[in-house]
């Protein structure tokens, strides 16, 4: 019990309990939604070669003829032991399929968010500190452009330039980090850049407004009037205090990318979660849809937790208890 008296430990215990409740809610919601969507997985699996006999045989073999409640409880019980069932389509364990896709998805999300931050933080700060001037206008117009440009178009342009014309980078595909680190990085650059540039455009606007808000505060004026060098005022007083909203939006962006950037995955033939879910929905592969949504929910909760912990790091006034 001594462990749980530590405020951080207590915070974590509470958050994990709360996360479990959320996950059960997600489970019920996704199970219900999947059932509500019209379209019959057995009918799709048979395609144009449908016959009533084949239909009944496949339906019974997939367990879809059992009552809905019994299907749900069987699923929920095994889900908590890590068994997410098997894909309707090829009988592969869903947990394995998800674990196969996770490294590609995480690679792309991390690369995208790193690129986005490398661009958005300096651009946003610069733009805020030069509010109303030409350089501010340039940053704002560029970021508006970045928000508006469709990501598939950006991806195709990047392929045309860096792969077809210059021959520097591969057009598409994925290499696992631990099998082929060089290949991993080379295959990651273009999709990472596509995801990163779009996210950067969004983040820049948030960074700019967060910094602007802080720059209006009294203590910043005080710091400046004390005669502190502009650099110290900017970084120690302004940016540091703008970090909380920036962290929030970064967490949301990261979670969104982890949940799947389907268009980018399609353009770059990237084996991520987005395409998996898309194909699973098209085929009404219920176990894969449910498993993937659960996994994405877990990732969201994890990121939220990390972001909450980081709040306390960047702003000691925030206490976890």
């Amino acid at each position, binding site marked *: 019990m001594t462990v749980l008296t530590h405020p951080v430990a207590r915070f974590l215990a509470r958050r994990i309990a709360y996360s479990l409740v959320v996950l059960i809610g997600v489970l019920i919601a996704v199970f219900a939604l999947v059932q509500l969507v019209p379209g019959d997985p057995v009918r799709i*699996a048979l*395609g*144009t070669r449908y016959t009533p006999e084949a239909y009944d045989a496949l339906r019974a073999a997939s367990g879809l003829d059992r009552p809905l409640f019994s299907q749900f409880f069987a699923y929920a019980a095994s889900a908590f032991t890590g068994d997410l069932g098997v894909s309707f389509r*090829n*009988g*592969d364990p869903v947990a394995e399929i998800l674990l196969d896709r996770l490294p590609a998805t995480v690679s792309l999300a991390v690369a995208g968010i790193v690129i986005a931050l490398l661009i958005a933080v300096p651009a946003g700060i610069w733009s805020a500190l030069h509010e109303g001037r030409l350089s501010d206008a340039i940053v704002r117009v560029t970021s508006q452009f970045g928000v508006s440009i469709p990501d598939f178009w950006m991806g195709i342009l990047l392929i045309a330039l860096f792969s077809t014309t210059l021959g520097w980078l591969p057009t*598409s595909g994925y290499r696992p980090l631990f099998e082929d680190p060089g290949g991993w990085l080379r295959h990651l650059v273009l999709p990472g850049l596509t995801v990163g540039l779009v996210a950067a455009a969004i983040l820049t606007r948030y960074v700019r407004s967060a910094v602007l808000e802080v720059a209006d505060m009294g203590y910043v004026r005080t710091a400046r009037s004390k005669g502190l060098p502009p650099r110290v005022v900017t970084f120690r007083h302004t940016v540091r205090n703008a970090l909380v909203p920036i962290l929030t939006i970064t967490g949301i962006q990261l979670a969104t990318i982890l949940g799947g950037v389907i268009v980018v995955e399609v353009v770059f033939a990237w*084996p991520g979660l987005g395409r*998996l879910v898309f194909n699973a929905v098209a085929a009404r592969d219920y176990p894969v849809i449910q498993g993937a949504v659960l996994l994405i929910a877990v990732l969201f909760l994890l990121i939220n937790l990390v972001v909450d912990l980081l709040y306390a790091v960047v702003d000691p006034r925030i206490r976890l208890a």
Partner: protein
Amino acid sequence: MRRASAVIAVVIAMVLVVSCAPAERVDLGRGSGNLIVAIAGEPDQLDPQKTSAYFSFEVLENVFDTLVEPDANLEMQPALAASWTVSPDQLVWTFRLRSGVQFHDGSPFTSADVVYSYRRIIDEKLANVGKFSAVTDVTAPDANTVVIRVKQPTPNLLTNLGGFKGMAIVSRKNVESGQIATKPIGTGPFAFASQKSGDSIVLRANGNYWGGAPKVPGVTFQFITEPTTALSALQAGEIDWTDSVPTQRIAQLQGDDSLHLAVTPGNDYWYLALNEARPPWNDVRVRRAVAYAIDRQSIVQATSYGSASANQLAIPKGNPWYTPYDTYRYDVDEAKRLLRDAGAQPAKMDMLVTSEYPETITAAQVIADNLKPLGITVDIRTVDFATWLDEQNNGHFDMLMLGWLGNIDPDDFYYAQHHTDGANNAQKYSNPEVDRLLDAGRVETNRAARQQDYARAATIIADDVSYLYLYNPSVIQAWTTNLSGYEARRDGAIRFRTASLTGGGDR
């Protein structure tokens, strides 16, 4: 801050160095010497008897064999069966199997495997069970002989057994271990090696293949859905072959000497069907009015940039079962006259199309425009394929558009779609004469007489507008000049058994 900038600078420098340093044009496991091809999607599963996905068959065509198989002219040739005889009453087919054939795991191929494979389709009522509708018995009198008994003369038995890899001979061990869907074992020119979910499948050459060992050490199938990306990968030398080609680039690619482009008229067809259970579409004059109002050339242009061939019947020219037919023309006045005759003035039409096949959405827009002069407002309803199938089965549509794929024998084209008892007759067409002809075609062993039955049936089907046939899409494939010994086939079967690679500049 200075330290942070230094770290960032180092990271950027590393990215640039690692990503651009090698002077050669990208790696892709080129060291393996594998033929690298891109297909437009991932197979749903690799059990040939259970899948219905074309992406699966693109891969499995190279892994499995059937008793007989179609040659380039779609005539059946020996495969796992070396020869066969038919009894004088046409009711007993005896197949002599090729000897010395092995599965990829080294176990011998025998008549028991054929019986097991066929019994599996029949007993488990798998999707292709209809191919055995005339079969009463499959037996193996000895290890090298299979006897198939049929209840009536069945002229298309060979096509049913070998027309596509859905009728593949599978390994019992592979099925019973539950591995066939993910690690299939066949007798074909290539053996399954590995799969990376969402990324690729690797096959390796089967040195013991009965048709001679393949000339490439293996084939890597990459899943590249976006055709623009697949074409870029081909042009960049990352892949050797693809059928994921953007149709709008065909004209430009035809003049490109660095690539082979094959635009082969295919056997697939796309059609419209009007729901005859709903008035006024039950009136043949109203259906004919729609047929005259549709401008096929515009639809072909819009859906395929002109690469498909407009057709008023199912079968394209060049196919042995082709029947000439050109009753309809684009004629709005004739369409209006027919509607007046019928005393019908439909104001709305619920047209069911699916995002799974974007050509149906594109065509629907042209069709909506075509029907406007008749005073018909087409309500285009776009749904995903699962919903589409449900709506079709429940008869919730006025008109729908879809394609029928992988056709070889005319029984494939007509029976399920137009016979009163056909499993896919969602438009509820029923004509006793057509039923009689389609039943007769199933048992007629005289080729000329059979041809006549189907020509007659096809003509009535089009006259009655059971289906309003639109066009035959082309099989479009592109490959590098390094790849030789490969031919595009009109049935869409992708065979790499005779393909070879010559070392080009980047290899």
